[in-house]
């Protein structure tokens, strides 16, 4: 009988080297990576946790715990749903990487990343969960950097900031272990609050620790950005909520949630404002993500079930927006060799589908109706409208900033090209890439008209992971 944790951590790790060896055959490598991810995603969402069953002909029990050197790994219902989402997202981006290349390391490193994130979600002990996340972050450096030679800023900032976040968790974990051994020997609550605030502020990109978000969005392959920001956010949210569920007295000190509130407001404001003035799609994407993450932080800062529900739904809708805009951005970067507005004249005519995906994905990220991101943004506004009208205005204005940023980008792609060779003028989008881009657009639009599936998944996760 294969226990669930072993399967979810081990299978991607086994598949990764095979995918790496097959990287020259993009279709086979992508299909293998996507197939592995899809199978694990469906297993998490469909298979029962508490009884034996079969997976690819092998007997498994997903809910069976595994003990490694005295530390337990177990897949809980909430973890299964979250990992189901993460693996399905992985399957989508790995499959898209077949016809919209993201670099030779994208699929194998992506699989290792998913394995580490699975470990993070299934490990019960805070210290090892954080260390698993740290390992995932370091592995992600290879995914972010890929074949870029002009800049290492994104990868460097990403790994540096996340490494700086680890020590506060090391000390918190030790203090919590002391508390478990002797509940009367509790360190001052303020010590916990300060340490956790430092750690989570960096991991959740609370202003002023937001620099890595825009740097990663600018440097990473666009589908890698979608994978990173979605999976890591889910993992960090899980870490936070699991901690609060196990030690509800941590909520007695409001420092962490005050920081999340102020940091969220600043992130929304800064993201919207900076998006207005960007001159390239990479940075614009980064500030769009920052504004959206700010909204997520505000929802999270309420420390309520409904707030958590909205935060998770925002991550899911953001993932859809990022995949759509990422498909377009990848195609355009590949064609033009740049994503700077000034270099993209005539792109809307030469690559209409890619341009449409890029702009519509960005507008969805901004929460413009009737696109997919609107459902999440509406839920956020609806959540805050009764008590925090000023926050709603700020979120709305930040969305407007991102919309204007993308409209400026659209204008640049509609402008005539300065000089075009005959080859460039007649060269059209590759058929397969165009078909995949079109399919992604259609699926995202379909989701925007029926967002209940996302809200239902978020509600099921929150119900399984009850907040104190």
């Amino acid at each position, binding site marked *: 009988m294969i226990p669930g944790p072993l399967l979810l951590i081990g299978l991607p790790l086994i598949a990764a080297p095979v995918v790496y060896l097959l990287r020259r055959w993009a279709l086979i490598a992508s299909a293998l990576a996507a197939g592995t991810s899809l199978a694990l995603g469906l297993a998490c969402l469909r298979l029962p946790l508490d009884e034996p069953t079969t997976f690819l002909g092998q007997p498994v029990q997903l809910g069976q715990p595994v003990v490694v050197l005295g530390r337990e790994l177990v897949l809980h219902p909430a973890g299964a749903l979250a990992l189901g989402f993460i693996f399905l997202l992985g399957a989508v981006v790995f499959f898209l990487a077949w016809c919209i290349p993201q670099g030779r390391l994208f699929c194998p490193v992506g699989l290792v990343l998913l394995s580490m994130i699975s470990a993070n979600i299934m490990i019960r002990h805070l210290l*090892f969960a954080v260390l698993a996340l*740290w*390992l995932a972050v*370091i592995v992600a450096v*290879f995914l972010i950097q890929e074949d870029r030679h*002009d800049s*290492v800023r994104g990868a460097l900032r990403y790994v540096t900031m996340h490494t700086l976040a680890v*020590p506060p968790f090391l000390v918190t974990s030790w203090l919590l272990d002391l508390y478990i051994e002797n509940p009367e020997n509790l360190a001052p609550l303020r010590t916990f609050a300060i340490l956790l605030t430092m750690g989570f502020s960096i991991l959740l990109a609370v202003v002023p620790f937001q620099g890595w978000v825009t740097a990663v969005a600018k440097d990473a392959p666009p589908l890698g950005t979608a994978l990173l920001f979605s999976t890591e956010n889910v993992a960090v949210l899980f870490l936070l909520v699991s901690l609060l569920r196990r030690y509800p007295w941590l909520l007695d000190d409001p420092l962490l949630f005050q920081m999340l509130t102020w940091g969220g407001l600043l992130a929304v404001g800064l993201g919207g404002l900076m998006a207005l003035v960007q001159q390239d799609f990479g940075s614009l994407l980064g500030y769009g993500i920052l504004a959206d993450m700010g909204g997520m932080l505000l929802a999270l800062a309420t420390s309520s079930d409904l707030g958590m529900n909205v935060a998770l739904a925002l991550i899911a809708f953001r993932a859809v927006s990022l995949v759509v805009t990422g498909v377009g951005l990848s195609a355009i970067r590949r064609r033009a060799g740049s994503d700077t507005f000034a270099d993209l004249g005539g792109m809307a005519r030469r690559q209409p589908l890619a341009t449409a995906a890029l702009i519509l994905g960005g507008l969805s990220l901004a929460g413009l109706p009737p696109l997919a991101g609107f459902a999440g943004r509406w839920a956020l506004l609806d959540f805050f409208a009764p008590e925090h009208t000023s926050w709603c205005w700020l979120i709305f204005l930040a969305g407007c900033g991102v919309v204007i940023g993308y409209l400026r980008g659209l204008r640049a792609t509609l402008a005539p090209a300065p000089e075009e060779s005959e080859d460039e003028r007649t060269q059209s989008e590759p058929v397969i890439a165009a078909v995949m881009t079109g399919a992604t657009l259609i699926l995202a639009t379909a989701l925007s008209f029926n967002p209940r599936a996302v809200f239902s998944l978020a509600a099921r996760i929150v119900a399984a992971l009850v907040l104190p």
Partner: protein
Amino acid sequence: MPIFADLLEKLSFLAGTPAVAGLALTASLIVVSGDWRLSLLALLVQYILTGLLSTRLLPPQLALIKIYVGALICPMLYWAARRVEWTRKRRRQPEGTPLPPWPALTMGLPFRVLGMVLIGLAVYALGPSYPLPQVPWEIGLACYWLGLSGLLGLILTDEPFQAGLALLTFVTGCELFYAGLESSLLATGFLAAGNLLLALAMAYLTVVRGVGPVVEQEAGR
């Protein structure tokens, strides 16, 4: 293994103030020096001294792991730096133009030295006022020195090689402190794996940053 364990025991007389002073020196060299060979040698010595100090907090087998990790990390970074240097020397330079220095220092030597002096003052103030729990005071000073020097090094550079050394110095300081709090094999193993992966990532970024533009230029030519 027994040879290293014996050696560690013979060197145990250093596991006190001499090791702390040595760590202060190595961390300062990493931040101040512009010579990658010297910085890398300082990093290797830093891992050995940290291993020695760790014998006061951890079982010798676990303390040895830290030295092994250092012994694996330094060749990785050496290979990366060497590769960058070979590629730069191979690159055609216009007649009479000297090769620009690598790694490029964003701040001058006096500024870096001043920064380290400030770090020294900060450690002098923090050590007695906020002693770290569960570790002897001189090890606490070493933790502060390594952690703060690492942070300063990160602030002063955007070169992946030097940022990597600074980040590893920061992590070493935190690990030394954590060794006083917990001595489990799993935690030590996880941290060792993290250090090795971190060094690998930094070596990769060093090569990408140093070699990539040259390769692209040659491909374009």
